């Protein structure tokens, strides 16, 4: 019984930790980190246009609503697989301003070619 209680407490802590890490906030005041959740589904990213500040670390939390997708942001040499049921975190520090495109690089069906978005880095 004691073990079960410990397990439940640990599971709850894990759940709330993951939820807190995955929240769609634009900026984490504690760490001065920009945290953005992006949902991938056939055949779009939501949001598909994101804006971040130069020099402040960014964490992208990538989730899939349906099938295996990819995330590729060539300008910052970032890529990740996005699979249903898990959160994929990609961290980087945008070191230059501009607008950069990202796309799904795992072929996901009719409409895959249009599955893209833009990251805008501002001062």
């Amino acid at each position, binding site marked *: 019984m004691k073990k079960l209680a410990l397990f439940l407490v640990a599971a709850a802590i894990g759940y709330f930790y993951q939820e807190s890490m995955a929240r769609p906030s634009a900026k984490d005041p504690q760490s001065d980190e920009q945290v953005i959740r992006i949902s991938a589904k056939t055949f779009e990213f939501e949001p598909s246009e994101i804006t971040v500040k130069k020099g402040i670390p960014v964490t992208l939390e990538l989730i899939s609503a349906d099938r295996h997708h990819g995330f590729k942001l*060539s300008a910052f040499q970032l890529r990740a697989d996005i699979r249903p049921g898990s959160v994929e975190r990609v961290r980087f520090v945008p070191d230059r301003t501009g607008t950069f*495109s*990202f*796309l799904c690089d795992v*072929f996901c*069906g*009719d409409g*895959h070619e249009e599955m*893209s978005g*833009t990251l805008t880095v501002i001062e």
Partner: protein
Amino acid sequence: MDQLINRRDLLKLAGMGVAVFVSGTAIRAGGSQQKENDSFYFVQLSDTHWGFNGPAINPDSQGTLKKAVAAVNALDEQPDFVVFTGDLTQTTDNRGVRRDRMAEFRDIVSQLKVKTVRFMAGEHDASLDRGEAYQEFFGDLHYTFDHNGVHFIVLDNVSDPMAAVGEKQLQWLQADLKQQDKDARIVVLTHRPLFDLAPDWDWATQDGAAVIDTLMPHSNVTVLYGHIHQEHHHMTGHIAHHAAKSLMWALPEAHSVPKKGPMPWNAAEPYKGLGFRNVEARVRAGQYDIEEFPVLKG
């Protein structure tokens, strides 16, 4: 390149071991209209996307491939063979519909007078099921064949949905090339560009650099591919890469618009940007003369 080719273009391309002609003109390299003794020619068609339905993009989606087949059949001299460089069909999640489209495509191209037809897959044909249906209809995803002194290598960079050739196929390529002289005439046929044409537009092969490195010791290599739905010419060292037009829709030049997407149909210029090409191989010289043809002769 779609319009008139000028002297500057010809000179630029001369360094690529290729001459490019447009609109089915009869002009040949050096003004010669005679096929040389050691030459032959084949036709490349690409990105036919059979099954696509989008009237604003191509209101003749059911007829364009058939017109192209008729145009090839109407050539004055028939090619030795025809190659289709991928995306034969439009992708679908439905396994049955995928096979129906492949069967319909196969029936249509069986109307070609030329009976030697080489196929390869595009991501629309093979990425969702790792080439299972494609292989049922068209055979191996990668293979080689030889024709009149030219060694052709068909590479699969699509059945992996992450657009990689993969280590196993790379080893197969290395083993095949070991059998070839360093100055052998080699033509690589594939779907995606092997070089990083525009990775942020998905115009690349994940491990394409490794393929090019493997090919590099061979002095006479030309790559013909599709995927980008437009004519394009590029050199990586001494290796020339030539992209072909689509037979369903045209795409804009990389990064010329904010977001990649098909060019809308222009009723004033139907089939603009679509077409196929003849490739004349002059084997001794290791030269390839490319002649672009429209779907309909204007």
